[in-house]
Every structure is written in C-alpha cells, then in structure tokens.
C-alpha cells in the first residue's frame, strides 16, 4: 500500500493498494493509454489506464524494471492477500490503520531507492 499524494490523486482514495508481479507474469488484453510521470526520485513511472473508464490497469517503474504494479482493486476480490509494505506513512489519513506486521516507511523503501539510483546511473550511461 502507498499513502503518497500521487497515489491519493490517482486512486481518489486515501491511498493505493497494489501488488507487484514479475514483468513476465502479466499480459495486457484491451486498450490502454499511457501516462508517464517522474516520481520524487526522478525515475519515471509509466501508468497505463483504460481510456473508457479511467481505471489504472498497471504501471512500470524505471527504478524496478523487473516488476509490474497492479492495483489490487482490479481483482475485485476481498480475499486477495493483505499488503506487506506501507511507504509514505506521514501522508496517511489518521482514521486509517496500517495492519499489524506491515513494514512502514517514511518514504520509499531502501530497496526502491537503491533501484532508483541504479536506474539513474543506467540512464546517464545510455
């Protein structure tokens, strides 16, 4: 789950809940429209949304190119596994409680920041 303000505006909810899959595990059926935006690390996030209803279908992140982010709500399955990480907790709505056992971070996780730094180096090399 993510509480950052970009996720708030994108979802219209108090935050995003999403699942990361290996890039090879996800295929696309139907039309998607691309919206790219640099995140606060400078790395691009490429959101793909349905042009008919606006729902974000998936995204890829320059910092973690091996993964695809998929909004959990798209599965429309209340038994979907619970989240494990919660970045940007300072932007959390006070009425929302992060479940026990979920790793909380003030911003991005260290792993993500390391990926972002590596991606920016790669970009300079190219």
């Amino acid at each position, binding site marked *: 789950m993510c*509480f950052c*303000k*970009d*996720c*708030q*505006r*994108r*979802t*219209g*909810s*108090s*935050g*995003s*809940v*999403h699942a990361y899959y290996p890039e090879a595990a996800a295929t696309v059926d139907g039309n998607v*429209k691309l*919206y790219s*935006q640099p995140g606060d690390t400078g790395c691009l996030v490429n*959101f793909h*949304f*349905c*042009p*008919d*209803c*606006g*729902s*974000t279908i998936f995204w890829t992140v320059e910092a973690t190119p091996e993964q695809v982010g998929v*909004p*959990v*709500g*798209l599965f*429309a399955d*209340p*038994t*979907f596994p*619970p*989240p494990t990480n919660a970045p940007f907790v300072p*932007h*959390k*709505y*006070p*009425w*929302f*409680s992060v*479940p026990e056992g979920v790793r909380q971070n003030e911003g991005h996780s260290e792993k993500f920041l390391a990926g972002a730094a590596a991606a920016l180096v790669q970009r300079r090399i190219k």
Partner: protein
Amino acid sequence: MPVSAPGADFLRSGLHASANRIQLRDMLREAACQCGRLVIRCSGEPAGISVCHCLDCQRRTGSVFGVAAFFAKEQVTIAAGSSTAFKRGADSGSSVTLHFCGTCGSTVWWQPERLPAMVGVAVGAFADPDFPAPLQATWDKRQHRWLHLPDEIVSYPQSAVRAAPRD
C-alpha cells in the same frame, strides 16, 4: 485547512457533524487529478463523507475501497480542464456518471443518478490527510478481510441510501 477555533463567525457544518471541528462555512478546497489538468473547486463543507467497499469502487480506484465526499451541486465548480464521462450501473440498481481526466485517468467527481442534487468527489483528489474523516462505510460485505476501519465509522452491508423509486 480546517479551522478549529470557537467563535461567533463559525458555523458547524450541516450534515457532516465532524466531532471537535468547527468549520468556516466558506471553506474552499480544490480537488485535482494526478497530472493536475482537471481541477474542481468545492466551497463549504460536504454533506457527507463515505467509504465504499463495493467492487465498482475497488475497480475504479484500484485501491481496496473508495472514499467520497458528497457536496451539493451548487457547491462545486470546474476550475480547470475538461473531463471524460463514464456512465455505469451501480450495485444499488441506479446509475452513476463518473468524470475522469483523459490525460492521466484519475476520476475526480461523479454524479449519482439517485442523488441528482449531489456531486460525489474523490477524497484522494484533495490529497489532504487532514480532510474530515468518513462517518460511514457502505458495502462492508465486500470489505477486504485484512482491513479494519475505526468503530466510529458506521458500516452498512450494502448501500446506505435506498435507490430512488423509478417512474
């Protein structure tokens, strides 16, 4: 930002009796999509704020629930941009027309057919964790199993408002 200070010029908001908050009646807030091209301005306080666990809200937000603030139509103006409309049926049996940004996809507001005088605004579009808390949650039978909302939020198994009778 909500103002919480006692004083003669402050009016408690009508239907949204948020505890410990006294709001300026002419409070102005802007709700925007992710890319910032589509912006609406909401004056005054919302009549209600609601979490919705329905599967349509899950698919729209991509999150595990939607959070909506309902304003009277005349409280809401479009400040910037143009929207793409998406009309769908609702679990309540009624329909809703949602308005999203064609550039980034964020839904910013919608018009529920059964509440024609109201506009639902996506609370996340205000990007303000200090926005007043929701007082109710609908469709809790679709709530994700790991989720626990505060007891103060009154839960309904389905919709809290009965669909308006059709002619």
